């Protein structure tokens, strides 16, 4: 057994790889003693990993790139050797907007134009973090129908578990967040799904498993063992015959704490392992950097080569037995 390895996660369906690897004993099979800790915010995960209060975590891929570049926090060189999930996010709009059962971006654009004529306040949308695939998906979805996400609407940040309540209270009119939080809003009758991530940018990079470059350098064998266990966790989570068990596992209060049927509804969209999605492709880091640049998040002098080097497919390949 190694010393205690502390990993953090946020209450989302796409933390399944970590939760399954722990619950099914895949970490233990590798001789690892892993403690999972549920965290309340992405900023706290980022900071805890940076100072070593966590050894690694379920993290937003663009947040990891921003952290390496020192945008939005102190610069900490990071490594992302594994992608944890894709296609799990969705854009959900308030039923109050009256855009019907299958609202479209075009419908939203018309509503925004009407409201502008009536001099109503701009609609407010929520994402989970400034550096998140959710933020970029929402902006892409709006921009493709000519909406300017910085001028025509307001985009704010709110915690995923609170999205449905904010929608119900009329504080926000829509959000883009990972499952099960769209399923929760739909079930509560306050939201309707307008677009799934797969319809906006299929297989877009979303969550990764990441550590600091320093920790990875000091613990290469522990990291490989973690990656092998996580790959098993992802493969298990992806298998259709395991999804029911997975939903029940994620539903536990210590994990997500949402009824299993809602978890299962959201899980139908999440891809964990098939088609090699767990491999952190450098092209995906490039796609994320392009999104960050498009929306003015990256200063002109940023070291983009350093950001690209965060994605470490060679570590994945070694753990997967491909190299």
């Amino acid at each position, binding site marked *: 057994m190694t010393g205690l390895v502390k990993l953090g996660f946020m209450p989302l369906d796409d933390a399944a790889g970590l939760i399954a690897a722990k619950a099914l004993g895949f970490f233990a099979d590798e001789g690892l003693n892993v403690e999972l800790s549920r965290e309340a*915010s992405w*900023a706290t995960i980022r*900071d805890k990993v940076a*100072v070593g*209060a966590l050894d690694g975590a379920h993290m937003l891929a663009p947040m990891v790139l921003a952290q390496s570049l020192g945008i939005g926090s102190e610069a900490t060189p990071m490594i992302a050797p594994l992608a944890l999930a894709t296609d799990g996010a969705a854009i959900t709009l308030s039923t109050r907007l009256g855009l019907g059962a299958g609202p479209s971006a075009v419908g939203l654009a018309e509503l925004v134009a009407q409201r502008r004529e009536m001099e109503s306040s701009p609609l407010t949308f929520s994402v989970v973090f*400034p550096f998140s695939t959710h933020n970029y998906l929402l902006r892409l979805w709006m921009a493709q129908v000519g909406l300017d996400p910085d001028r025509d609407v307001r985009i704010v940040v709110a*915690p995923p*578990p609170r999205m449905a309540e904010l929608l119900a209270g009329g504080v926000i009119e829509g959000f883009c967040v990972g499952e099960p939080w769209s399923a929760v809003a739909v079930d509560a009758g306050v939201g309707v799904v307008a677009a799934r991530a797969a319809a906006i940018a299929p297989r877009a990079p979303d969550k990764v498993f990441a550590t600091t470059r320093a920790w990875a350098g000091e613990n290469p064998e522990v990291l490989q063992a973690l990656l092998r266990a996580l790959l098993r966790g992802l493969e298990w989570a992806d298998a259709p015959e395991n999804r029911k068990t997975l939903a029940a596992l994620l539903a536990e209060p210590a994990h997500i704490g949402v009824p299993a049927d809602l978890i299962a509804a959201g899980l139908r969209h999440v891809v964990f392992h098939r088609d090699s999605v767990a491999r952190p492709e450098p092209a995906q880091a490039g796609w994320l950097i392009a999104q960050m640049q498009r929306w003015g998040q990256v200063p002109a002098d940023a070291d983009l080569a350093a950001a690209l080097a965060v994605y470490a497919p060679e570590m994945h390949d070694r753990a997967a037995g491909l190299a």
Partner: protein
Amino acid sequence: MRVLVIDPDSARAALVAEGLAGVDPLEVRHRPFYDEAEAAAFAPDVVVVATESPDRDTIDSLRDASLANPRPVVMFVDRSEPGLAEAAVRAGVAAYVVDGLAPGRVRGVLEVAMSRFQLMNQLRKDLDKAKADLASRKTIERAKALLMKERGLEEEDAYKLLRKLSMDTGRPLGAVAADLLAFAGVLKGDAS
């Protein structure tokens, strides 16, 4: 200087606010969660937030100035004080400041908040331990009573037997007592 403390643990927030009241001219408010309109009306110079608050990402995102957010904030990291930011994260607290405040004054606020967090966390730990100790004492009493009844032992001998079991197995007295009660339950058919 106005300080807003956001902490879902209201008792801890009150303790932090009370500690900050001793720092130079200061107006302190504490809330269990972050409310945009309320924060805009109060216009804090410093926001102290518990890292276990789900609202931390919202506060962390207020870095850019906009019409709705005329006073952008940055996370307070004092480079003249190495290790301070790390200690704060470990204590479970983060501070965001409106640009332009003297770092010395903010550091004072953060240090008070950190010490109060540590104090509260220690109190909570002590309380949990006291509860566990009490539960363990009750278990020992019950195990003792069981031995007295089933083996016809005097109270002191029953206790000695438990202590011997504890020493022989190298396990705490409470754990041995709990095992004994559980086994007795199984033998009686309470649990199968």
